């Protein structure tokens, strides 16, 4: 249950963050000035550490305190990034990885959500599925690479398959947990208001589970990036993972770093995007008790 518990830890962190901002909003509605000041202060706290690290790194490289072939200074990484962007190479690799991740996650959502709802809702079905899934789940996605190559050959399908395996379980486990935690009173309320057993899934179980499904997708996107890089290292000739491994062979550590930082940045932006989407889609799901 490692994935599920990390999801929960993540949620705790979010509740704290949201509580603070909700309290801020309440006190600041009257006067926007302190709010702006607090906003600036928070921004400073967010960037101070990365900026400091960059500055020390750059200074150390310029003073030649270490071998810059192994770790080029930020300025050189930046120039390398400009070069890769200008040539269109970065965009091409990024687009390839992104397409595979999107495909793998869409297929995962389409299969893991219905399966998770059935497993969470019908105990006998869960018991039938449980043994098989729990043996498959601990197998690291990377261990599937040899078989994937045998089955699908080198290229697109293998990479998507590996990525799909990691995303699938993250979404499945969160969906099951979500379905199980649906408030029994809500089910009963729907039944006394005239809902049929069939209506329950659509009217109560799915909407109540949606926040958990979104959490599952957030985790799935995170682990997708982990496994896609490994899969592309071995089974593909494009994508950010391939790009990183290619430049290792030609000893271009600056370009390796560009690839790594791109993944970090995209992962961050995608996670924030999902959080934003969640707030838009689920205005009722504040996760903060009034």
């Amino acid at each position: 249950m490692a994935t599920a518990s990390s999801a929960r830890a993540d949620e705790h962190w979010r509740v704290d963050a949201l509580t603070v901002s909700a309290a801020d909003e309440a006190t600041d509605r009257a006067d926007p000035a302190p709010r702006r000041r607090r906003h600036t202060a928070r921004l400073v706290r967010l960037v101070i550490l990365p900026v400091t690290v960059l500055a020390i790194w750059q200074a150390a490289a310029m003073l030649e305190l270490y071998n810059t072939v192994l770790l080029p200074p930020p300025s050189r990484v930046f120039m390398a990034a400009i070069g890769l962007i200008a040539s269109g190479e970065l965009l091409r690799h990024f687009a390839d990885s992104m397409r595979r991740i999107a495909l793998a996650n869409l297929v995962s959502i389409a299969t893991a959500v219905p399966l998770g709802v059935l497993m969470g809702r019908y105990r006998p079905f869960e018991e039938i599925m449980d043994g098989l899934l729990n043996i498959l789940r601990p197998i690291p996605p990377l261990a599937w690479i040899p078989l994937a190559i045998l089955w699908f050959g080198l290229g697109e399908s293998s990479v998507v398959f590996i990525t799909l395996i990691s995303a699938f379980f993250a979404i499945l486990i969160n969906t099951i947990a979500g379905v199980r935690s649906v408030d029994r009173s809500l089910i009963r309320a729907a039944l006394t208001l005239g809902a049929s057993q069939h209506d329950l899934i659509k009217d109560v179980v799915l909407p109540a589970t949606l926040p958990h499904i979104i959490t599952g997708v957030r985790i799935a996107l995170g682990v997708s990036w982990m496994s896609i890089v490994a899969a592309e290292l071995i089974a593909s000739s494009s994508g950010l993972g391939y790009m990183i491994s290619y430049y290792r062979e030609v000893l271009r550590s600056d370009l390796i770093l560009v690839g790594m930082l791109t993944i970090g940045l995209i992962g961050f932006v995608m996670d924030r995007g999902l959080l934003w989407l969640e707030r838009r889609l689920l205005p009722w799901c504040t996760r903060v008790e009034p």
Partner: protein
Amino acid sequence: MAVKLEIRDVSKAYDAPGGDRRVRALDGISFSVDQGEFVSLLGPSGCGKSTLLNMIAGFEAASSGEIRLDGKLVQQPGADRGLVFQDYALFPWKTLLDNVMYGPQKRGLPKRECVEIARRYIELVGLAGFEAHYPHQLSGGMRQRCALARSVANDPDVLLMDEPLAAIDALTRNTLQEEILRVCDARNGTPRKTVIYVTHSIDEAVFLSDRIVVMSPRPGRVFELVDVPLPAPRTDETRLLPEFHELTARIWRSLKIYAKPA
């Protein structure tokens, strides 16, 4: 008056956790409720009053005996028995309007009519203007008003209420008690609602009810049936009547032996 609901010799037993013995939750419960009557199930915790309500709602089956609504055997939950919960059970992803509309929609009424019904009942419970709010934006009292509107808007034959005011603060509770009676009253064409109300508050039971089923615990039995001859409408004045105090004192004397040592 016509008998609406009949509870005949209902018992309920289940295996204790561990499974080594049977626990008798309810034992030989019998009483009937007339059309338009407000009946409270009153008793200390452990007397099975909520279990009995769940059985009337159709969520649990009796081990023996039967429950009949308009002569028909109760076997599963249905829209003819509306339920108001202690924890409100409003759909958190629906606005107030959509919550109250849910029942009429399930009856297959056209959308326009559902909105009209919902607005009428939201106004009836004093929540006009809050139609677009989500439950988490409201206080506990407002949420319970909304839950009441949702149940009554669906026009059930019997309204079942499971300690609906237990989580409400004392000041709001008094107001809401009057509100419940007002909402359940006869109104342009629709007859007065038949209500089964579960509570462990003697005051509340006496204030609201036409009749009180006093229950004793372990196993749950009907201890006595108490008529409440207080005049309608019940208002703040009612709480000052000597009859009100005599009745609550009398019920307290019989239930006192079951009160847990403080």
